[in-house]
């Protein structure tokens, strides 16, 4: 299910401590990165890999916003809705981006390229309204053509 690199990364996390549980956070992140979701199949797989119960893995997976129960698009476009971004027009930007992509927050474009998310403060408030494409900070979104966002 996972690439050799991914397995190596999980193994490295596992080697850090005696507790196999410790590697779970890394396993979830790596799996999300490769599979774009941590759904029932992935949960069973991780549970087997680390020798943990699937219920436990699911409980932890569902705690985190960046671990998705259903597949995301190829890219995740996260628009910050934090208070600082709100004060800099984030609501208007979110509405414009939603209209451009033809989807609402939480949805994925029909071609599967973009999932749009509204997220809490991402810690990039000096570039408000802040946004991220996958792991990259791309704010302020008002300053770049919104069109460009979807071409990155």
């Amino acid at each position, binding site marked *: 299910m996972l690439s050799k690199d991914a397995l190596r990364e999980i193994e490295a*996390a596992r080697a*850090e*401590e*005696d*507790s196999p*549980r*410790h*590697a*779970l*956070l*890394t396993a*979830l*992140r790596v799996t*999300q990165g490769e599979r774009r979701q941590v759904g029932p199949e992935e949960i069973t797989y991780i549970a087997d890999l680390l020798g943990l119960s699937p219920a436990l893995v699911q*409980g*932890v997976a569902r*705690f*985190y*916003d*960046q*671990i998705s129960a259903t597949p995301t698009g190829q890219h995740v476009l*996260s628009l910050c*809705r*934090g*208070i*600082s971004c*709100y*004060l*800099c027009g984030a609501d208007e930007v979110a509405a414009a981006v939603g209209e451009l992509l033809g989807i609402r927050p939480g949805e994925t474009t029909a071609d599967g390229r973009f999932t749009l998310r509204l*997220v*809490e*403060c*991402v*810690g*990039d*408030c*000096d570039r*408000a309204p802040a946004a*991220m494409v996958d*792991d*990259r*900070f791309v704010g302020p979104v008002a300053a770049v053509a919104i069109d460009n966002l979807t071409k990155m």
Partner: protein
Amino acid sequence: MAQYLTRNALDPAQRELQTALRAGAYLGFKQALSLPPQEVVAEIDASGLRGRGGAGFPTGRKWSFIHAKEGQTVYLLCNADESEPGTFKDHYLIERDPHLVLEGVAIGAYAIGAHRAYIYMRGEYASLAETLAAALREAMAADIIGPNCMNSGYDLRITIQLGAGAYICGEETGLIQSLEGRRAYPRVRPPFPAVHGFLQEPTVVNNVETLACAARIMAEGAEAFKDHGTGRSAGTKLISVSGAVERPGVYEVELGYPLMEFLQGEAGGIRGGRGLKAIIPGGTSVPVLTAEEAAPLTIDYESMQSAGTMLGSGGMIVFGDDTSMPQALLRIAEFYAHESCGECTPCREGTGWMAWVLRRLLAGEGRPGDLGLLLRVGDNIEGRTICGLGDASVQPVRSFIRKFRPEFEALLPEPVQAVAWQSHGHGPRTGRFGPPAEEATRSEAVDGPPTAAL
């Protein structure tokens, strides 16, 4: 603008080890390694350094709580989960001067007798984790960090761990739980992390900026640190200012620096030449200040405390006079409702209720008692939860309503019904002053002579 912590941060070349070394990187670690750990703790204690993550707890004292028994593994955890809304100072430090951060981690670990350290970064900082990891690889290749750090005989292993999106992981026991591979439900204290922390071992959790300060202090001495700031607020502070200002960004200031001077100077004044309405000085978890309250204050722990708020994380959020405070409060309340981890009922339910009541007020569907209800819900959260998130969620609600009450009252329904009801039984029972028609009919029926119907 002070230049103590950030003196090298403006130069992008600082990310590279050779440049950083020329600017004095790791001299503090070298100095620390030449001393017994207790003396490093004593030096930090003497500097008066207080935690820069939000709580302001004296760092030297925190370190002195570690008393490891034979066979125990001590851990230093660097909290780089920076998620308090409006806070992005650690983002700045890690991005601009990663070696200063690593040096601080190394010093903290040495001081508490740890050979293992983790830097826990929020998942959104994955790109910064790469910068930090590159710096760590360089420092390890140069034998500065690793087995036998700088030929001192001291071994240190630093691991960078990314989170996956949850505000509560910045709470120290939430961070520990997350690192252990659990849901980040905060733990009941005592026992404190210094006794039972990560994997039940003695653990210290320090903020990024705090450890960076420790690096400077070991390089230049506690006295040089105390040359900055005020008596009880020693040193400088990174202020991340955002919202309605012309120049949002991270600025290092002397503690004790006048707030208005900062706002007009470094931050460039209110955006669009507007007036100032309010300031949240240290992240959304601290009470808001009106423009009038903020005017005489200085940026330090005591001054903020005297005004009933806190310096917190230094995440300063500025509101211009065109801001709707109820709208802004809704945004903040929704944050806490989303980020409450769900472990404690008062917080899990209460944060949702506060957001819900604010939403209905703003939708024009408020009820007469809604402001009182909001405050009561807050009272029932505060002090009744395991961690500080619940308390934090109450601060904005209470302070916004108290300080900007007319804006909230304007959202309440017209009190027609209330007035009419009050007059019932007091005023003369005439059509004009009596209770509403329906009520009048009913009382007539009761009060009227029993024979009337016959």
